[in-house]
């Protein structure tokens, strides 16, 4: 191999493996995050799911808000959707920090769902490892290395493209891992390039603010203010009756489309200067751009609308949209979910391959044991951590204070335990963790089903996925790790 080839190989193999310790959990949580609302529904079994008409839901929400928040300057109503079939209401003095509640879509009764981060934990961890801005730097850096690993992989294996349907599962362990790595990589290549690039673009808002500094003096709000028109006015202090919100909803649907309104924001209800703002949902377009329209609350006249945006905004937000995948319905969500896991498999197979190569050369020395353990913690380990989070949701009673934090603590503690377990049990750890993960999947699915999981489509979906995952993990443990000499 040429010196350039060797250097790229070093970047690809070692850069790839080291960053895969982070990227595999990011990919796994990212795949789960595709189904964030469904996972949240699973984690809050108190939530009901009833079909309803948007106008009925808005009327019920308005009644509730009039009863409980008539003096508050800001109201928000999240209309029920197919994925979140209940009403979200919120109120408060600061639009960025509103007190929230959930109502049954048909009766309007408050549902006292248990406090939890729900599926959003996976999205949050995926985006910034729960570390905020430093986390976005870290994940962003990992994303750039991933892109480099993809490109170097293509450059190194370019001859492989002539034979890319080849899979020789019985040709010997090293060949089998290489074939699995190549096949899963090539098959998911368009997805991997797209998802990694768009992910980096999103994170670059945080870690590469050069344009914000050059154009807006470093103030990101100034950029947003220039692009997103805001229609606001100060309260007059003069009370005035508000037209029913269903009237405003109808007016909004006339502009945004029937059934296309995702939420309503009411500014200063009961004031003469009150405004009602309706936002359009983004699940029928590639660009994640939410059109909006604002009406005078008292007389219903149009106060402002934004349905046309800067052309470059559509292009940029298409990148965001491609990554967050609100469009395309169920088929696209499953394609993204499975492709993400395929990407994780590609990285796992690559790790197994490199670990095997190194062991054959250097034996079972201390660095090898550490690398093995880190691999186990990132692959079966992060699966076990995710399952622990779900299990904690059911094991911790619904009324316990601070339970959201306890659930997250379960994720990180189990993750730490898998690393310690892998350091102690060495190569047997892979098999043991795969079996444990498989058992946990099946137990969780059965436990949820027997506690009423069959009534709800979202919960059924999660339970079936858990069962399928459990079966797959068990089959993998037998096929790859039973004799302890796979990696």
């Amino acid at each position, binding site marked *: 191999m040429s010196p350039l080839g060797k250097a790229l190989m070093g970047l690809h193999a070692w850069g790839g493996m080291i960053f895969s310790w982070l990227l595999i959990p990011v990919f796994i949580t990212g795949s789960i995050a595709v189904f964030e609302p469904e996972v949240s529904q699973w984690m809050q079994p108190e939530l009901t799911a009833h079909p309803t008409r948007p106008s009925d839901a808005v009327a019920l929400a308005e009644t509730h808000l009039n009863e409980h928040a008539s003096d508050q300057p800001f109201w928000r109503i999240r209309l029920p959707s197919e994925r979140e079939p209940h009403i979200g209401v919120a109120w408060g003095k600061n639009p960025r920090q509103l007190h929230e509640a959930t109502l049954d879509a048909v009766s309007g009764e408050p549902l006292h769902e248990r406090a939890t981060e729900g599926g959003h934990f996976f999205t949050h961890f995926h985006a910034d490892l729960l570390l905020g801005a430093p986390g976005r730097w870290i994940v962003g850096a990992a994303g750039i290395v991933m892109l480099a690993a993809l490109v170097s992989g293509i450059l190194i294996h370019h001859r492989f493209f002539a*034979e*890319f*349907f080849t*899979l020789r599962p*019985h040709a010997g362990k090293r060949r089998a891992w290489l074939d699995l790595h190549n*096949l*899963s990589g090539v098959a998911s290549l*368009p*997805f991997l390039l797209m998802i990694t690039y768009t992910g980096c673009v999103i994170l670059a808002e945080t870690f590469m603010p050069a344009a914000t500094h050059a154009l807006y003096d470093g103030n990101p709000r100034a950029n947003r203010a220039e692009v997103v028109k805001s229609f606001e006015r100060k309260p007059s202090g003069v009370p005035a009756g508000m037209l029913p919100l269903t009237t405003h909803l109808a007016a909004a649907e006339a502009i945004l489309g029937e059934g296309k309104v995702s939420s309503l924001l009411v500014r200063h209800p009961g004031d003469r200067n009150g405004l009602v703002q309706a936002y359009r949902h983004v699940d029928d377009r590639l660009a994640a751009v939410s059109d909006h329209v604002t009406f005078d609350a008292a007389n219903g006249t149009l106060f402002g609308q934004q349905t046309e945006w800067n052309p470059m905004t559509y292009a940029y937000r298409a990148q965001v949209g491609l990554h967050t995948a609100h469009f395309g319905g169920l088929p696209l969500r499953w*394609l993204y979910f499975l492709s993400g896991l395929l990407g994780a498999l590609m990285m796992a197979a690559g790790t197994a391959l490199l670990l095997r190569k190194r062991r054959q050369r250097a034996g079972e020395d201390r660095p090898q044991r550490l690398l093995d353990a880190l691999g186990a913690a990132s692959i079966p380990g992060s699966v076990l951590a995710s399952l622990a989070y779900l299990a904690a949701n059911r094991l911790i009673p619904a009324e316990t204070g601070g339970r959201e934090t306890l659930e997250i603590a379960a994720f990180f503690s189990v993750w730490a335990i898998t690393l310690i377990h892998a350091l102690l049990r060495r190569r047997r750890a892979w098999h043991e963790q795969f079996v444990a993960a498989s058992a946990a999947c099946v137990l969780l699915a059965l436990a949820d089903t027997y506690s009423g999981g069959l009534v709800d489509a979202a919960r059924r979906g999660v339970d079936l996925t858990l069962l399928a995952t459990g079966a797959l993990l068990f089959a993998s443990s037998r096929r790859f790790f039973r004799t302890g000499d796979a990696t």
Partner: protein
Amino acid sequence: MMPLLVTGLLTLVAMGCLALGMERHFHAWLGRAATPRQRKDLRLAGWFLLAGAIALSIRHWGASIGPVIWLGVLTFAILGVALILAVRGR
């Protein structure tokens, strides 16, 4: 569901044709060597079916979302063909 299945099936068969258009896989599948003409015909059929699948995706999901879904389906069509060939090769 139906458009997804039809697109998936078309893409799977298309990739199958492209795979069989390669000497190695033709031989593994049919146990004999292919003539250049046969391989060319298979590849042509493959590209043609692929175009059909893309057209179907665009027709059903629109010009921006259609290609995205088709690319996603392509991933699994490639996997499907590889797995079928691997199983057959045993």
